[in-house]
C-alpha cells in the first residue's frame, strides 16, 4: 500500500482543500459575527466571494497537466480545470447579483452564501472525480446544499414545495445511480473510471446487465441535468425557489453535470458507445421538444427559463450522442454560451421588482423598451442568442453541434434538432415582442446594483460579439477537450 504522499502532486487538490477550510472558517465566523442587518450580510457575501475568488486563482494557477491522485479517486486534466473555472466564475456572479433580491425577500441569513460555497465545493469534487463513488459524494454534497437553498424561503409554500420535490426526486435519482453503479461493480469489480475503460472493452458489448447499469447511471445524471423525460421537477423547482437560487440552479450545476456526463461517456463508457448512443439521442430529442412545446404556454418567466434549460440541455446531449471528438468540443462550446446567456437573463429576472416585491410574470415585462431601453436591449440580445439566431453566440453554438452531427452522419438527428430549435425560437421571440410592442401595464423597476449591471452588460456584449472571437474560443476549447479522449 502506498503511504507516502507526493506533495507536489498534492498541490493539484489545493483549491478544494482551500475552499473546505474557508467554509469551515466561514461557519465559525458566521456564528460569532451573527446579526441580520444589511451591512453584516454584505460582509458575509464578500467573505464568500473572496473565498471563491481565491479558489478561482488557485485552480487557474494549478498544474493543468493530467494527473490522478488519492488512489485514483481524483483526476486533474484540462477539462476539469476549465469546467472548475467556469463553475467558480459563475458562482461568483450569482453571489454578486443576488444581494438586492435577498434584501427584499428577507433571505439575509449567512447560511445562504455558505450553502452556495458548499454546493460549489460539491461541484468541484464532481468535476474532478475519477471514480463513481467520489462522483456520488460530489453529487450529494452539491444537491443537498441545493435542496436546502431551494426551500430557504420558509414562509412561502411554493418554496417548501420546491425543496421537497427536488429532494424526493433527487434522492430517487441518487438511488438509481447507486443501483447502476453497484451493478457495474458486479460486472467489472471496480468503480474507477480509468480501470473501467480498460475492463469494459473485453466484455460482450450487449451484455444486458451492463446495458441496464448504463441506463440507470445515465438517467440519474440526466435527472441532474434536468433532461426530459427526467425533467418533471424542473419547472416547479425553478418557480418555487427564491429567484437567485433558481439562477444558481439554472447555471452552475448544469455546467458541472455536463462535465460529469462528458467524462463518464468518454472514459469508462468510451468503448461501449453502442450501448449508450441511442439512449442519449432519445433523451436529447425528447428534451428538445419538451423544452420547445412546454415553454410556449408558460406565463411565469421562471417556468419559461426552466423549459429553456431543458431544451438547451437537449442540444448538449444531442451533440454528445455522436460520440466524436468534435461532438465533445461542440457541447463544451454550447454549454459555455448557454451559461453566459442564461446568467445574463437571470440578472434581469432577479432584478424584476415593483415596490420591493419581486415580479415574475412574463406580462410584467410588457413595454419595458420605453421605460428601460437598456434592459430591453440586453434581454432581447440574450434571448435571441438562446434562440440560436445569427449573429449571436447561441447560433455559433448550435451551428457547431449540427456540423458535428452531420459530419458523423447523424443527419436525421440534426434535422430534428433544427426543427426543435425553430419551434423554440417562437417563445423567445414572443418575449421580445411583449417587451417592444405591448403596452405598459405596470411600472416595473429593475433594481440593479453596480455589479449586476456590469455582469448584464458584459454578458450581452460577449454574446453579441461572439463571432468576432469565435475562432479563438473554439481553438481554446479544442485544446481543453483533447485532454479527455
Amino acid at each position: 500500500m502506498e503511504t507516502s504522499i507526493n506533495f507536489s502532486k498534492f498541490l493539484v487538490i489545493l483549491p478544494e482543500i482551500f475552499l473546505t477550510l474557508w467554509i469551515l472558517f466561514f461557519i465559525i465566523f458566521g456564528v460569532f459575527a451573527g446579526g441580520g442587518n444589511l451591512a453584516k450580510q454584505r460582509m458575509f457575501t464578500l467573505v464568500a466571494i473572496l473565498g471563491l475568488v481565491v479558489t478561482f486563482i488557485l485552480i487557474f494557477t494549478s498544474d493543468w497537466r493530467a494527473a490522478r491522485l488519492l488512489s485514483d479517486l481524483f483526476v486533474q486534466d484540462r477539462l476539469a480545470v476549465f469546467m472548475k473555472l467556469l463553475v467558480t466564475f459563475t458562482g461568483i456572479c450569482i453571489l454578486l447579483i443576488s444581494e438586492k433580491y435577498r434584501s427584499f425577500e428577507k433571505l439575509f441569513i449567512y447560511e445562504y452564501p455558505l450553502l452556495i460555497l458548499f454546493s460549489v465545493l460539491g461541484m468541484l469534487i464532481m468535476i474532478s472525480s475519477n471514480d463513481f463513488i467520489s462522483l456520488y459524494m460530489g453529487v450529494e454534497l452539491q444537491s443537498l446544499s441545493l435542496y436546502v437553498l431551494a426551500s430557504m424561503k420558509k414562509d412561502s409554500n411554493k418554496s417548501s414545495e420546491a425543496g421537497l420535490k427536488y429532494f424526493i426526486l433527487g434522492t430517487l435519482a441518487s438511488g438509481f445511480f447507486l443501483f447502476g453503479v453497484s451493478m457495474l461493480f458486479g460486472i467489472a469489480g471496480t468503480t474507477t473510471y480509468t480501470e473501467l475503460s480498460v475492463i469494459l472493452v473485453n466484455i460482450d458489448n450487449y451484455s444486458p446487465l451492463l446495458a441496464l447499469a448504463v441506463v440507470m447511471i445515465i438517467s440519474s445524471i440526466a435527472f441532474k441535468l434536468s433532461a426530459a423525460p427526467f425533467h418533471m421537477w424542473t419547472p416547479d423547482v425553478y418557480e418555487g425557489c427564491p429567484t437567485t437560487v433558481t439562477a444558481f440552479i439554472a447555471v452552475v450545476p448544469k455546467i458541472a453535470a455536463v462535465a460529469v456526463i462528458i467524462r463518464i461517456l468518454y472514459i469508462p463508457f468510451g468503448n461501449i458507445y453502442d450501448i449508450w448512443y441511442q439512449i442519449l439521442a432519445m433523451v436529447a430529442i425528447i428534451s428538445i421538444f419538451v423544452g420547445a412545446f412546454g415553454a410556449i404556454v408558460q406565463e411565469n418567466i421562471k417556468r419559461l427559463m426552466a423549459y429553456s434549460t431543458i431544451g438547451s440541455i437537449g442540444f448538449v446531449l444531442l451533440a454528445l450522442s455522436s460520440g466524436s471528438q468534435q461532438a465533445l468540443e461542440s457541447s463544451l462550446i454550447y454549454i459555455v454560451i448557454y451559461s453566459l446567456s442564461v446568467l445574463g437573463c437571470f440578472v434581469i429576472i432577479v432584478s424584476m421588482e415593483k415596490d420591493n416585491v419581486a415580479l415574475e410574470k412574463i406580462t410584467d415585462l410588457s413595454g419595458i423598451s420605453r421605460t428601460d431601453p437598456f434592459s430591453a436591449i440586453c434581454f432581447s440580445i440574450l434571448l435571441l442568442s438562446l434562440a440560436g439566431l445569427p449573429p449571436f453566440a447561441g447560433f455559433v453554438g448550435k451551428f457547431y453541434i449540427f456540423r458535428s452531427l452531420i459530419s458523423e452522419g447523424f443527419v436525421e438527428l440534426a434535422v430534428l434538432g433544427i426543427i426543435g430549435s425553430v419551434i423554440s425560437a417562437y417563445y423567445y421571440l414572443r418575449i421580445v415582442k411583449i417587451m417592444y410592442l405591448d403596452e405598459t401595464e405596470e411600472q416595473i423597476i429593475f433594481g440593479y446594483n453596480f455589479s449586476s449591471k456590469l455582469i448584464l452588460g458584459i454578458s450581452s456584449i460577449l454574446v453579441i460579439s461572439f463571432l468576432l472571437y469565435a475562432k479563438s474560443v473554439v481553438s481554446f476549447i479544442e485544446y481543453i477537450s483533447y485532454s479527455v479522449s
Partner: protein
Amino acid sequence: MTVLSLFFYLFASVSLTSSVLVVVSRNPVHSVLFLILTFFNCAALFVLMGAEFLAMLLLVVYIGAIAVLFLFVVMMLNIDFATLRKGMSKNAPIGVLVGLVLFIEIVVSILGMNFEELPNSFSEAQITYNEIENTRALGMVLYTQYAYLFQCAGLILLVAMIGAIVLTHRKRDTVRRQSVIKQVLRSRDQSIDIKKVEIGKGTSK
C-alpha cells in the same frame, strides 16, 4: 444444509416478509416497526456473512438512532390514511406496471449475463484481507486509501446538519430560556434591594 444456512433462510425470509409488510400494513407505526424488523434481520444476515462490524453499525446507526427518530415522527403525525389511499387505487396500476417492467428487466438482465466472462478482479478483491478481522480491515482502507471519500462524507453530513438547522430553527421571543451563566454570576446586590419601609406608606414609588 448446515446450521448456518438454516439461519440464513430464517433471517432472509423474515426480512423479506417484513419488508413486504412495511408496504402493505395499514397502520404507519406498524410499518415503521416492520421496517425496524427488516433492518434487524439484515444486520443478522451481515453477521452470517462475517461482516460483524457492519452489522453492529447497522444496529447502532439505523435502528438505534435513525429509526427511533422516524418512529417518533410517525407517531406524532396524525396521518389520515383514508385520504392518502384515495389516489392509491387510481395510481396503483401504473405503479405496479412500472415496477413489474423494471423487475422483469432486472431478472432478464441477470439471466442473460454470462458470468464466465467476468473479469477476475472481482473475485480477487474479496479475499485480500480475509485473514484480518473486518473492523481492522475496514479501518486500514478507510483512513488511507479512501480518506478522501471519508472526508467528503463528513462534509455531506455537515451540510445536512446545517440544512436542518436553517430550515427548522426560528427565533421565538416568547420562550424564556435559562441562562446558567447569568444565574451563577448574579450577585447579591443585583437581586436584593433592601428598603426601609415606613409604616403606612408601603414600598410603592
